[in-house]
C-alpha cells in the first residue's frame, strides 16, 4: 500500500473511532441511567452491548496505534485512561454492585470519553 493511501485509510479509521467514542459516551450514560432508575435487567443487557462495542473500539485503536503510534499519541493517552477504569467496572460487575457500575460508567468512563471528544464539557 502506498503511503498516501495508507494515510487516508488511517485517517478514515481515526474518524470512525472518534465517532464511536461519542456513541460510547452516550451509551455508557444511558446504561448508567437505566441502572440508577432501577431497570437493572435492561441496564445489564445494555452493558453487555456497550462492552462489546468497547472491544471493537479497542481492536480498531490497537490497529491504528500499531500502524502509526506517533501520529495518534492522543488516542494512546485515551486508551491508557480507559484501561485504568475497566478493572473497576469488572470488579463491580462481578460483585453485582449496580450502584458502582453506574458510577464507573457515568463518572469515570463517560466523562473520560467526553473529555476526549468534547474537551471542557461540563456535565
Amino acid at each position, binding site marked *: 500500500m502506498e503511503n498516501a493511501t495508507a494515510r487516508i485509510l488511517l485517517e478514515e479509521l481515526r474518524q470512525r473511532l472518534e465517532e464511536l467514542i461519542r456513541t460510547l459516551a452516550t451509551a455508557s450514560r444511558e446504561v448508567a441511567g437505566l441502572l440508577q*432508575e*432501577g*431497570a437493572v435487567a435492561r441496564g445489564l443487557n445494555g452493558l453487555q452491548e456497550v462492552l462489546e462495542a468497547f472491544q471493537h473500539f479497542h481492536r480498531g485503536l490497537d490497529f491504528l496505534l500499531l500502524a502509526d503510534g506517533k501520529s495518534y499519541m492522543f488516542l494512546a493517552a485515551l486508551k491508557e485512561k480507559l484501561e485504568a477504569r475497566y478493572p473497576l467496572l469488572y470488579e463491580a460487575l462481578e*460483585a*453485582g*454492585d449496580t*450502584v*458502582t457500575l*453506574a*458510577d464507573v460508567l457515568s463518572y469515570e468512563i463517560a466523562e473520560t470519553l467526553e473529555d476526549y471528544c468534547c474537551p471542557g464539557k461540563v456535565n
Partner: protein
Amino acid sequence: MAHVAIEFLETKNGSTTARATVAGGSAFLLHSAYDPEAEAERLVAGYPSLANAGGVICLGLGLAYHIEAMLRVVPADTKILVIEVNDQLRERFAQHASTSTQKKVIVAKDEAAAKGYLSLLRERLQERGLVIVEHSASIRLDPEFYEHLRRRIRDHISLLVVELNTLKTVSHIMHANNLENLPAVIADPGIKALKDAFRGRPAVIVAAGPSLSKNIDLLEAVKGRGVIICVGTAWKALLKAGLRPDLVVTLDATEANWRLFAGLTPTEEFLCYEPQVHPAIIPLFEGRRFVFNSLKSPLTAWLRELCGDKGYVEPGGSVAIAAFGIACLLGANPIVFIGQDLAYTDGYTHAKGTAYEDRRFKPTERELYCLEVPAVGGGTVTTTRNLYSFLTRFEELFAQEKDRLIIDATEGGALKRGTKVMTLRETIDFHFTEEFPILPVIANLHRKHQPDPFLRERVRKELDKTAREYMRLIPELAKVLSLAAKAEELSSIAERFRTVHLVGQWTIGSGILATLKQKGQQLTRQLRAVNSEHRLLSLLSLLTPEVELKPLLTEDAPLPAQIERIRKVYASYLQAAKYMCKELERTAARLLPDGGFERDRTLEHILQNQVVKL
C-alpha cells in the same frame, strides 16, 4: 436474615453513602459514591405516577436519598411506607432524618405494616393509585425477603380489590337485606348453637368448582359418616346426584344467589345464612335455619349488638371460606374439600349439575384478569384475580389451624398450601369409616334454642329511636346544603368581578363561606355527638362509601373546591339520612307485635325491594 455489615463512606460531593458486606464477603454500595442525590432523582424520575399517588410503598430505605426525592414529588397528603429489613439503616433514619421527613414517612421492617397501610388507605388508593418503588441496591440485602414481600403485597391488593368491588357493587343491597332479614335473624338460632357438636368428626365441604364432577358420585359413601356442608352453588348438583347435604351455606346478597335456590326444596338439610343474604332464600328453610355473622361493617356490627352474638365466622369474600369457618366451629377434624378448584380446571368455571355448568373460561380475559398458579398434580392452572384472593385467604386460615388436618380431595385445580392432597376415594376409606348421628344432633340443638321473648320489641324500639335521630338531622343537613348553594352563587359572582378587577379577591365569597363552614362544622360536631350514642356517623359513612367522611378542605384550598367538598359530603349525608330513616321506620313497623313482618313478607315484596334506589 443473613448478617450484613454496613459501613458509611463519604462521597465525592461530600454526602454519605453506605457499603454493605453480605455473608460470603460480597460488598456493594447502596448509593452512588459520587452524587447520591442525583442518582436518587434519576430513580424517582422513573416513576412519573408518583406525582398523583394515593400511597407509596418503597422496598428498601438505604440512606433515604430516594425517599427525600420522592417527598418532593408526591402529593402533600401522601405518606410513604418504607420497608427496610436492616435494623442499622432503620435506626440511622430515626436518628438522622428531619422531623418533617419522619412525619411523612413510615419505616417498618415487615409485611404486617404493608397490610395495615393498604387497608387504611384503601379508598384513597382506589381513587389515586398505589406506587411501589424498588430500591434495587437495598433489595440485595435480603432478596428472598423482598421477593416474599412483593408477593404478599400483591396478595393484599388482590384481596382489597375484591372487597372493594364487592362493597361497591352490592353495598346498598347488603344493607337493604340486613334490614329485610332482621325479623328472621332475631328469631333464628345462631351457628354458635352447633359449637363443637362434631368435635373430632370428619366433615366434607362441597364447593362447586369443575372438579366436583369427578368425584361427586363417591359422596354418597360419606353420608352419615361425616358432616356434609355444601355451598349454595353446589346444592343443586348434589340434589341432582340424589344426595342431601346436612348443611347448606349461603352469604351472597344478590339475586343471582337466589336463582341458585329457586325451585329447590329442602327436606332434611339446614341452612346456615349470613344476614346480608338475599331475603327470598330464607323462607325456603322455615324452621331449619342457623344464622352466622361474617361481615364487619358498622351497620352489621350495630345490628349484631342489638340481636346478640349468633356466632362469628371469619370473612374472606367466598361462601366456601364461610363453610370452612363453620366446619371449624363444629369442631370437625379432618376437614375435607371437594370441588374447591379455585381455578378453571379444563377450562370450566363450575361443576356439572350446577346453575353455571355451561360456563367456560374466556381466553380473551386471560391477560387482564388471570394468572397461573401451581396446580394439584403438578404444573400450573389458570385462575382469576378473585379466585386467587380466595386462595390466599384460605392459606392464611389453614395456617391458623395447625392442629386440624385439612385435606384437599378436589382432585384438580389450584394447589393450596396447608392442605394434604388426597383423592376422595382414599379419604373416604381412611377417614369416613364410622357412622354417627348428624342430622338428629343438628335438629336437637336447633330445637333447644330458646329465643329471648323481649328481643324483638327491644330491637324495634332501638330502630325507631335511631330513625327519629335521623329525622332530626335531615332539616339541619338541608340547611347546610342551601347555604352551600348560596355560597357557590356568590363565589361565581365574586369570580366575575375579580376577573374585571372591580373588587378584591374573594371578598364576597369569603364571608358566606365562613358562615357555611361554621354551620358545617357545627353539624359535624352534632353528628359526632349523636354518633357516640347511636353510631349514626358510621351508618352514614357506610351508606356513602364513595364519599366517606371526608374532612372539609382547609382555608388555603381554592374557594370553589371548598364549596364543592361541602356540597358533596353533606348531600351524601342527606341522602343517606333520608334512606335510613325510611328503612329503619319500615323495619321497626315490621317488628310490631301485630305481625307486620308476616303480612308483607310475600316473595314479590321481597324481590321488589331488591332494587334499592337512593
